[in-house]
């Protein structure tokens, strides 16, 4: 390793992980919440006007900023009306105002037996007051007029705020740190020259054969990167594989055509193909028209590709990315035209169609492993190996958890609980 390069040693990786964890915990401890402390209110006194329509009031209304969120939400909870247990309460109406004396507006209602509500329409810059009223069916149907709420005890003020750290997802944070550490360790090993084994993936072994077939037949290669945008990881994986396919097409001097359905994919795919042609030493062979836009519409895109396939009869078609209902329309037409087809997607509902109508299919994670497999770059191979270590840990967790639960110890699986 050159002197100027940053070195990732196992010790440093572990230290980074510890420091990141500590940073997260420190950030979490920063008092960022500006919500008022909860304010218990005794609402046992009810105005005369309210008595005519409502049941007994609820007690101990508490309002507070909803924790572990991005702000904008206040949690209102209360002790049930004594009439609730007698079955006389139909609904609880929840009201909000920016001043203690109103005017109040209704922000929601919950059925009897529910004693909390999240107000998701709060502004972090405002303070609010809340009141809760229990009503029977008749009163709930009639509704309350604003004057009936005058003088009603309120809870507040409270304001919502965002938190930097979601403590309910600390397990996800730990998993992220572990996985990142595994990947960094493996990348370090790959960089230091250790040979990392990757098993054969049939669909990727066939890429060479598929490009070669198109060259021999003197026909085009079609590459379809799915119908989703660049904010989808499958599209990103598809465009990454496109780079490798384009490089081979440039080397073999075979025409590669990439019809896309999104403007951002168009721009990215053009960059990737252009770079691949340069890498292959054939920048002159690249034409911008090779990557072209059709339409954003899912079925319009499918209809256009179907037409192109039957008219131009490509020798090879790749489908790599995220697909929906158009998958079978595309793959079946390609199959009927006699093209060799290689598909890859992580959409569980579309994989059966590709398996049925394509020669090779990359299932789920094989799509994401493809770029490492095809390029054999140490960084990517190390990343793949690191992910395998993560999977090994999951397998161990499943075995331990299943055994513990079988023998009646239930706490282990709670380590994996994620609350939104």
């Amino acid at each position: 390793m050159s002197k100027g390069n940053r070195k990732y040693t196992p010790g440093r990786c572990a230290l980074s992980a510890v420091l990141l964890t500590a940073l997260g915990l420190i950030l979490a401890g920063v008092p960022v919440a500006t919500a008022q402390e909860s304010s218990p209110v005794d609402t046992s006194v009810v105005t005369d006007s309210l008595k005519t329509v409502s049941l007994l009031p609820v007690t101990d209304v508490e309002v507070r900023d909803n924790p572990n969120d991005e702000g904008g939400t206040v949690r209102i909870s209360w002790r049930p009306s004594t009439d609730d247990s007698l079955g006389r309460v139909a609904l609880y109406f929840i009201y909000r105002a920016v001043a203690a004396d109103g005017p109040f507006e209704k922000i929601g209602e919950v059925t009897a037996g529910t004693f909390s509500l999240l107000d998701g329409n709060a502004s972090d810059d405002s303070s609010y007051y809340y009141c809760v009223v229990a009503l029977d069916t008749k009163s709930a149907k009639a509704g309350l007029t604003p004057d009936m709420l005058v003088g009603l005890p309120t809870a507040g003020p409270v304001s919502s705020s965002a938190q930097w750290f979601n403590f309910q997802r600390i397990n996800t944070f730990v998993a992220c740190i572990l996985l990142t550490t595994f990947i960094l360790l493996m990348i370090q090993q790959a960089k230091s020259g250790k040979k990392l084994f990757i098993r054969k993936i049939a669909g990727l072994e066939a890429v060479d054969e598929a490009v070669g077939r198109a060259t021999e037949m003197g026909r085009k290669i079609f590459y379809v990167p799915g119908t989703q945008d660049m904010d989808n990881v499958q599209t990103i994986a598809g465009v990454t594989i496109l780079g490798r396919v384009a490089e081979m097409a440039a080397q073999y001097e075979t025409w590669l055509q990439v019809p896309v359905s999104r403007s951002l994919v168009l721009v990215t795919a053009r960059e990737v193909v252009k770079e691949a042609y340069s890498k292959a030493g054939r920048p002159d062979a690249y034409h911008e028209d090779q990557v072209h836009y059709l339409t954003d519409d899912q079925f319009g895109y499918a209809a256009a590709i179907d037409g192109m396939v039957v008219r131009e009869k490509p020798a090879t078609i790749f489908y790599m990315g995220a697909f929906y209902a158009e998958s079978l329309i595309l793959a079946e037409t390609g199959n009927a035209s006699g093209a060799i087809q290689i598909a890859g997607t992580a959409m569980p509902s579309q994989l059966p169609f590709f398996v049925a109508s394509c020669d090779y299919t990359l299932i789920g994670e094989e799509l994401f492993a493809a770029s490492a497999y095809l390029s054999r770059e140490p960084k990517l191979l190390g990343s793949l190996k690191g992910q395998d270590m993560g999977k090994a840990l999951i397998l161990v967790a499943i075995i331990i958890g299943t055994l513990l639960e079988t023998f009646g110890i239930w706490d282990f699986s709670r380590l994996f609980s994620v609350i939104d």
Partner: protein
Amino acid sequence: MDHFAVWIAAFLTMGIVSFLYKDNPWYKLSEAIFVGISAGYWFIALFWDSIYSKFWLGKEADPFLWVGVFLGVLMLLRLIPKIGWISRWPLAFIVGCTSGLYLINFLASNLMRQVQATIQPLFGPDFGASLYAAVGSIVIVVGTFSGLVYFFFSKEHKGAFGATAKLGIWFIMITFGASFGYTVMSRMSLLIGRIDFLLTDWLGLIR
């Protein structure tokens, strides 16, 4: 006017369906109209939904929208060849942010929740369920375990490990078979909907 629209819709539907016979001028015309109109429609829809509704009307309330505009302008620099390379920055931003966001989402949904759902008692006094539920639990645990083994890339699928991976791919293929049948049935309902349109709205044979 409505009647005219129904005739156009029927004409284009039949044009697309004619592809089942073979590629023909009718299909080509329908395809060109479909692609052209949908591309134009999406352009207008994105303009009104994003540029007008989100940015133009909301720019005062949310100053962060200017970040999006800035990145959009950088993207348009592709049109100027000398500084076109700058358009790679917003692309890098999108790809980087997407990867980061998805990492956390996948860890939460595909890892944590999946592991929690898989961990369940196989049998025993605390299980207290029927034989049917016990078999279901075993299938879930064994299926998830062997399926995960199939997706190991850094170990050769040989011996016991290979056998487990093979069991995993069997589980996956059986799931695909069930999913295939289910989806074909839902596609049949789409076909029925289209035939219903032709027979009811267009020809008036069903009232």
